[in-house]
């Protein structure tokens, strides 16, 4: 084993890429949970987005069209969850599980003819001569558009939730839906919109995996990233900027694990591959002491009569 074989510049550039699907999925779920809805279907929406994005990118030859389709696909499939929980008042945990099971099946069905195809590549953003700066250039300025879009999305969500009227309304609905209803806000509509936003974000995250990170289509390729995103929201105490830090920490660990596999460390591959999940559990244990940050109405259904 030779640890010096790990190139620090490539390592950091790699973990930024590893963190991006998580950021997309988690920031969407963060908004959903801030409005008081617990959508456990992130994994299902991600995999749906992954195949929608992949298929459209292959058919049109445009990766950006693929990402747009992934966002639409994620939002559309999330409507199923919205219908169940907001209109039919079904249990949110069960509905989220249903969405995941359904999404996994549907994506396998849609993806049959796309196995083994290479998608068109999304080029890196051209920063001109800035990209020639040593270290900073290859680490920070040599990525595709969607990686920067994820960052911008987190900042936007942070600003909207913290400083705008819209953010205040979203949080009010999440903290106390009865009070928000009494003030005249349309709880169900606001939550449905948030769920669709979460679906679109999860779809983008899925497409980032199938179009950029891997890039190809295999069944069940999101491999639990959606669930890790759910854990990340708890880790971040429902705060966008902490979520960013968490995602990068996590991305770093995943990348480190992959690099250790590549340089042939003396630990069997399977044990390295299980480490992200074990680390997620450890983090959940450390942070589970603080439940106060959770939105007040999280997981509770709203009906105007009750």
């Amino acid at each position: 084993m030779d640890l010096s074989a790990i190139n620090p510049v490539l390592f950091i550039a790699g973990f930024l890429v590893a963190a991006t699907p998580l950021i997309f999925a988690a920031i969407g779920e963060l908004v959903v949970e801030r409005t008081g809805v617990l959508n456990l279907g992130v994994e299902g929406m991600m995999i749906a987005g992954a195949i929608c994005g992949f298929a459209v990118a292959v058919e049109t030859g445009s990766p950006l069209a693929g990402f747009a389709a992934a966002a639409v696909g994620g939002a559309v499939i999330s409507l199923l969850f919205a219908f169940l929980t907001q209109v039919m008042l079904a249990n949110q945990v069960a509905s989220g599980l249903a969405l995941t099971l359904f999404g996994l099946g549907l994506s396998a069905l849609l993806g049959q003819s796309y196995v083994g195809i290479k998608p068109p590549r999304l080029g890196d953003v051209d920063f001109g001569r800035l990209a020639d700066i040593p270290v900073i250039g290859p680490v920070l300025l040599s990525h595709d558009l969607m990686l920067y879009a994820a960052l911008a999305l987190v900042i936007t969500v942070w600003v909207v939730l913290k400083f705008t009227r819209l953010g205040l309304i979203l949080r009010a609905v999440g903290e106390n839906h009865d009070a928000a209803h009494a003030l005249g806000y349309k709880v169900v509509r606001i939550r449905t919109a948030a769920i669709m936003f979460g679906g679109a974000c999860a779809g983008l995250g899925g497409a980032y995996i199938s179009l950029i990170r891997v890039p190809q289509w295999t069944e069940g390729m999101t491999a639990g990233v959606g669930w890790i995103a759910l854990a990340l929201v708890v880790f971040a105490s429902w705060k966008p900027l902490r979520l960013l830090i968490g995602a990068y920490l996590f991305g770093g660990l995943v990348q480190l694990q992959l690099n250790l596999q590549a340089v042939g460390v003396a630990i069997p591959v399977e044990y390295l591959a299980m480490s992200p999940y074990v680390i997620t559990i450890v983090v959940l244990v450390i942070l589970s002491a603080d439940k106060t940050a959770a939105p007040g109405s999280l997981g509770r259904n709203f009906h105007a009569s009750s």
Partner: protein
Amino acid sequence: MIRLEKRPEPSRAFALAAPVLAVVATMIAGGMLFAALGNDPVASIVTIFWEPLFGEFAFYYRPQLLIKGAPLVLIAIGLSLGFKAGIWNIGAEGQYIMGALFGAGVGLAFYPAATWYVFPLMVIAGAAGGWVWAMIPALLKVRFGTNEILVSLMLVYVAEQFLASMSLGLLRNPEGMGFPGSRNLQQYPSAYNADLIAGSGMHWGVVAALVAVIFGYVLLARHRLGFAIRVTGEAPRAARFSGVNPARLILFCLGTSGLLAGLAGLFEVSGPAGQVTIDFNVGYGFTAIIVAFLGRLHPVGILLAGGLMALTYIGGDIASSNLGLPAAAIQVFQGMLLFFLLAFDLFTNFRLRLGRTEAV
């Protein structure tokens, strides 16, 4: 105007009708899906639901019904206890894998000793494996308040990696010429979970599933603990006042569901599957979630739902080999079933009212 009005009491009739309606709705929606895929919808539905029971080769498929249904029922009974009390074990797939690994490990350790006690020891080890794996989220929840949904699910991925490591390493067949996978337990009589009546599909797992149904029924209907489970699910505060110990309930529900999932894994690996391979698990742990809900979290309901779900597995296999229906279509079909069920459940607690609300 149509609006929803909360029923003073949940409707018992509708609670029973909802699963039936859900199955009918799924057949219709599934038929549309199959038609969209270019298959004859009626023929597909008939193939899935009729062929395995009464078709030409039903003598072959009926035993399969027991083989596929038993693990589903076994796992779903355990899950339903927790689901009733609001304790969400969704990592049954991981507990299933660990039960199989523990049990098969014990069996293989005795190879080639031909003694009667090998199989009973394997059963105990399998149950212990599932139990231990479920105790991780249980203890973390009791001690640290960690979310059991996320922990139990993360452990599925850990178990899958562990399975890969075992079938490529420790448990690999030394005479397997380098192929991954363990010795075939079907060729080791002391460890083989054979049909009790040859060709009937009736192996020990089926017996265990039936025992679990009876155990679940007695527990929920007649036992204090079952009462505590029901009260905790319906009114957590009332449960606490009446002296229910939530920590003990969490340990019991997660432990029992893990134990049953572990048993299911052991019976599968020592019988129908035969050997530990990287992908011997086929997602029973997740499908059992659908079975538990479809069965209304009631033991008898779960028995029926398990049978129905086994039917879709077998019928789906037939449809994919005879009609070329993609295997994934069946997965979508099963997912739809849960959707429709959750949607129809609304009418258990609410009813539709036509017309405007009168001003008081």
